[in-house]
């Protein structure tokens, strides 16, 4: 009863793939926006902060529907993407990754931003006087010192991506092998007769994945803080 069926294995590997790309693609803009929010003052900062946090406070279904309107084949952005690059994110795994990325984005930005805010800016000006350009200061001082936040944000957004359900099912539907990630597979199984054992297995797999992510983050965070002598 504990061995996964091919359908469940497929859902697991799809979930890992979707989450991996979700995190990877949201890291660069996430770090940039976190830095902007932590260090820059500009008109509209509150608004940007609000927009970034929107997925955290909106019902996921609303976000999914918004994505569908914008990025569906006939949506303004979706049509443009298709015509310019021949790429479409509607009803495929890329769309699932995008939905997961959008939903996890506030968590990522929040963790990195908090970490950057705790960095002593005087270290950055010291680096400037030693001859470093602002870009170099960012990569040699700010980013390494923000590593704990970067790590926490990555793990959090990875876990959030694994669990993404509402926006995914609304935006890219529930297509086996394409957009049926673990939570969607669990949802389908609960709705079919005799699906309980499969659902149970997926539940256990989800718990293991989640626990693994938290333990891994805890372990890495300790090593990091030891290296920085905190």
């Amino acid at each position, binding site marked *: 009863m504990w061995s996964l069926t091919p359908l469940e294995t497929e859902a697991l590997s799809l979930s890992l793939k979707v989450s991996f790309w979700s995190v990877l693609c949201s890291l660069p803009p996430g770090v940039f926006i976190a830095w902007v929010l932590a260090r820059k003052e500009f008109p509209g900062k509150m608004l940007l902060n609000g927009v970034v946090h929107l997925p955290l406070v909106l019902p996921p279904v609303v976000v999914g529907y918004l994505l569908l309107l914008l990025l569906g084949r006939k949506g303004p952005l979706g049509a443009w993407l298709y015509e310019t690059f021949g790429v479409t994110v509607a009803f495929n795994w890329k769309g699932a990754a995008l939905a997961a990325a959008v939903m996890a984005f506030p968590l990522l930005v929040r963790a990195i931003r908090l970490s950057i805010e705790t960095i002593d800016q*005087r270290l950055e000006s010291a680096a400037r006087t030693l001859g*470093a350009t602002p870009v170099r200061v960012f990569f040699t001082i700010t980013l390494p010192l923000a590593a704990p936040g970067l790590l926490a944000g990555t793990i959090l957004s990875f876990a959030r991506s694994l669990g993404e359900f509402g926006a995914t099912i609304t935006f890219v539907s529930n297509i086996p092998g394409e957009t049926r990630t673990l939570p969607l597979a669990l949802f389908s199984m609960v709705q079919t007769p005799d699906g309980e054992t499969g659902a149970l297995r997926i539940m256990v797999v989800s718990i293991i994945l989640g626990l693994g992510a938290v333990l891994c983050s805890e372990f890495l965070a300790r090593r990091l803080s030891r290296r920085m002598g905190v």
Partner: protein
Amino acid sequence: MLEVDVRHRFGDFALEAAFKAETRTITALFGRSGSGKTSLVNLLAGLLTPNEGRIAVDGRVLFDSASGVNVPPNKRRIGYIFQESRLFPHMNVRKNLCYGRNLLPAAERRIGFDEIVELLDLAPLLDRDVTHLSGGETQRVAIGRALLSSPRLLVMDEPLASLDAPRKNEILPFIERLRDHMDMPVVYVSHALEEIIRLSDTMVLLSGGKVAATGPVEELTARLDLYPMTGRYEAGAVLATKIAEHDDKFGLSYLDFAGGRLTVPRVDLPVGSGIKLRIRARDVSLSLHRVENTSILNTLFGTIVEINDQGGPQLDIALLVGESRILARVTRKAASLLSLEAGKPIYALMKAVAIDRRSMGRSGSLSRVAETEKPAASDH
């Protein structure tokens, strides 16, 4: 040489400063907290941009509001040593030291890594984490890091302020050493007069964002009108002296200055070394006649040139002894009993043991003759 002439406003605080600092000298920026010292050096380093003015190092213009020049901090080549050291916590000592150096093209590295490691005695620390260094070690690494970026100007913002007295004495000889070895102007910010007397040659006195006076340390410390800014309790004249001879029997040294000879507890430096020495006004007594049979070893003969009466029970009196000014603080009652007035000949008495050893320092120009000696020697 550093040339500064800047004006800057922060809210209702106006900073307005013009001064010059020569190569191979330590120019002290002295003033109470809030006098604008740190803001001024931040303007030099480019961490703050002045409203208007001009900053140039060795003829290279770093800032000039008239021609619109404003070189960014990373291109200014100013070594900045901060009060809180600001070592990078995610790098070990060696990586901290090399941070600025690695950003320079090899041809522009004027100062060698090994040279700095030796000068600041950093060899045992190289592979240590910076978070496990003592306060004194931390500050030595910070000094090394700034120097290894081969700066054209070194700026030190109260580098000793966060250290306790023993750590200060650990660092001071290194700074003296660096003054004698490094071919660049040094600007040393401090509110501790004894550090300035020990280290620097020229002093810029800041008060309320303005330069109140500038000139040789000896001259400024002997001016009665600057007491309110230099601190009344600490007031005293600084003399440039030279070791004439040692008295091994009694453990004393005789120092010659323009105006006579002083006896002080033994100074462990070779005969001929230059020593700057502060004689605090409150340690000097006055007498109309030569006093015989006294335990006080130093009697100097001079003339009263100025009396500063700010009310209260004490008066500050400036005497001219030979070519040197000495300050004395006496009670109003004593001044009245002796009928002290300008032009009156007078004897000044100083206990040898009262001469302030904390502010005794080798004078820069003379000490370069004796470059081989250990820096710690000047401590005694």
